[in-house]
């Protein structure tokens, strides 16, 4: 990274970097540092999950028995997200193949990359649409977070005078303090909601990449934007890989 041997500075190289290699590796390092904080952020949600599971383990089993979350929808979403991850990876690969000096080959690869990016964005939208159907169904039956939970088949007892929720109501009006569906659905909405938000942001940046590619940007020595968005997108996928079984599958 020394500046002794002078060489041309391409327009996309920032003034404070000596070489593209330095710029790209810095960008990638910065992105990984960002992914680290993303992981730690989600770890809080997973810790909340562990704690709730520790206190109200029965509830999670009961949710499965009552089949309150649609496994088919969750499964489809998983497949969709994995596929989008593949297309994203392939898009990055295409970017890596674009030669620095413009020619037919560079155009070809850039076009492939754009297509793959758009496909990724579309798949992400499919994921969101399916999520929308899941949410609206829960809104309909009333399996909502905390105070708003009002699911008739599995009601919880609210103490009007103090606003406390004491536990689920069993047959004969017995109150079961160790059953807390309202907290389960708090977790469900907070975790999938946060993840969904990341998907929405992902769609945005991926389309932004496609736009830049259309403007003829990116080549094999200047593709760290694509690579970093790729990393981000894979992380979103990574989170879902854990979220899906924890929410939809385990007893």
């Amino acid at each position, binding site marked *: *990274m020394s500046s002794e041997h002078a060489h041309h500075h391409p327009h996309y190289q920032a003034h404070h970097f000596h070489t593209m290699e330095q710029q790209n590796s810095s960008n990638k390092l910065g992105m990984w540092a960002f992914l680290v904080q993303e992981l730690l*952020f989600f*770890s809080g949600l997973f*810790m909340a999950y562990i704690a709730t599971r520790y206190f109200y383990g029965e509830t999670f089993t009961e949710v499965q028995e009552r089949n309150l979350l649609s496994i088919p929808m969750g499964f489809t979403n998983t497949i969709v997200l994995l596929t989008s991850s593949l297309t994203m990876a392939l898009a990055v690969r295409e970017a890596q193949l674009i030669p620095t000096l413009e020619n037919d080959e560079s155009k070809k690869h850039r076009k492939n990359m754009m297509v793959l990016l758009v496909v990724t964005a579309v798949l992400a939208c499919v994921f969101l649409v399916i999520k929308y159907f899941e949410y609206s169904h829960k809104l309909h039956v009333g399996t909502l*977070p905390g105070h708003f939970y009002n699911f008739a088949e599995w009601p919880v007892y609210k103490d009007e005078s103090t606003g406390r929720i004491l536990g689920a109501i069993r047959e004969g009006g017995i109150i079961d303090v160790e059953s807390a569906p309202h907290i389960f659905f*708090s977790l469900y909405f907070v975790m999938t909601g946060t993840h969904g938000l990341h998907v929405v942001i992902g769609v945005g940046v991926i389309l932004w990449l496609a736009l830049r590619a259309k403007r003829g940007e990116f080549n094999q020595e200047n593709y760290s934007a694509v690579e970093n968005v790729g990393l981000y997108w894979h992380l979103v996928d990574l989170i879902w890989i854990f979220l899906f079984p924890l929410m939809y599958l385990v007893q």
Partner: protein
Amino acid sequence: MSSASSSAEHSAGTNYLNAKKGIASWLLTVDHKRIGIMYMITILSFFLIGGLFAMLVRYELLDAAPTLTAKNYNKAFTLHGAIMVFLVLVPAIPASIGNFVLPLMLGAKDVAFPKLNLLSFHIYILGSLFLVYTLAAGGVDTGWTFYTPYSANTDTSVISALAGAFILGFSSILTGLNFIATIHKMRAPGMTWRKLPLFLWAIYATSLIQILATPVIAVTLVLLMVERGLGIGIFDPALGGDPVLFQHFFWFYSHPVVYVMILPAFGVISETITINSRKHIFGYMAIAASSVAIAAVGFIVWGHHMFLSGQSEALGAIFSFITFGVAVPTAIKVCSWIATLYKGSIRWNTVMIYTIAFLWIFSIGGLTGLPLATLATDVHLHDTYFVVAHFHYTMMGGVLFALIAAIHHWWPKMTGKMFNETAGRIFAIFAFISYNLTFIPQFIAGTRGMPRRYHEYLPQFQDMQFLSSIGAFAFGISLFCVLGLWIHSLLKGEKAPQNPWGGLTLEWATATPPIEHNFEEQPICTSGPYDFPEIDVKEPMAAK
């Protein structure tokens, strides 16, 4: 240390301050030096606001009988805490001094991501606006710790405060990852990790904590906001949540964050103590390593804030044991600094006085941590004024005196002006004495069992609280004197030479004030940061 110094003179005309004109050229600059200056001004003004709340609190406690209403007092100490922690102490040294000095020390043109750097400043401003709004909206009375269930149910404007802290967290995260990338990728040729100035080692350790711990407080605050909004019942026992779980979430960040505050201070002291005793730092690797060690161990001691919170007694014992582990690297640092003075040529200038003051204050802060880390004695001292005094000695005293030392140290480089040495020394001593007068009585009051966050107290604590308040007012005045010193220097100060203290780190190798892109040509790092010419290398007793 560098070959670039020759080039300093002929560019003396233009520098980063006068290169561009107009307010926009500041608010939209990507120049790390200007961003650092803007951070410093904002942080100092918020320190003023937080300080005013502190004065309000001390005024209330002058006398046992209440003058403010309970609610106003509770809001005062909450805002004092929240502003000081989230707006002042966390960004104090990394964002202001760090931003200005780090690339210069590395011999780089800028940080790795200049735009991101500006963005994190704007995020900081946005977050601070939320806290200002909280002020306008009647304040918040939860204490800066936001413990549930109180914070989930009180009728003050908690949400805006939480949102503010949440946003500020991201400012700190982005600064952290920016510095990590910069230190890894932008070091000048020849600057190996072993030639890295210790200030940068400290900033490096700090940045690691920032990206690893801050996201957890972010998610905690989000969950708490949702708790208030939807009543999700994860932290609120009324809905089946667990308040102790919240404390785990909170302290997993909020203990490491005290190292985000203090580690850069350590770094500053390592620089000022060597440069003013014209001597190589004692045990370079030990100090560098202990920074990283403190950062790492600091992550597994958070439970010592919760010995009495109803967490598992067994876990409390484990946390207590690990906590003592942090004492060792800290002791190593202090001993090494003092050993650095041995047979040096020590200047008695303003910066050095602040450095000595720091060592005194931090030693007290560190040592009083021991009875708090010990289970049985913490049972008695927890949540009393002993704790208040302890964390003011470490967090506030340590950080503030190091920050002032750093500002004086790099003042000529930042402004191109010198300040009045005599006045500087007098104010330094004034600040030091009044500071101790403020907090030593609190140790005594606390040991006698005065709980914290009391807006009125029993007669037997009267004398200690009175002394403390007097000290606090004096300390406030002394800080205004320091501010006056700086303003005077800006208006009347004589022009600063390129390298007033004879420093060897690269920031002294460029013009004063630095030019826009820091260096005329890429400096090459040839020797270590502390190989001062005065060192008599033929001296028989050498290293090891």
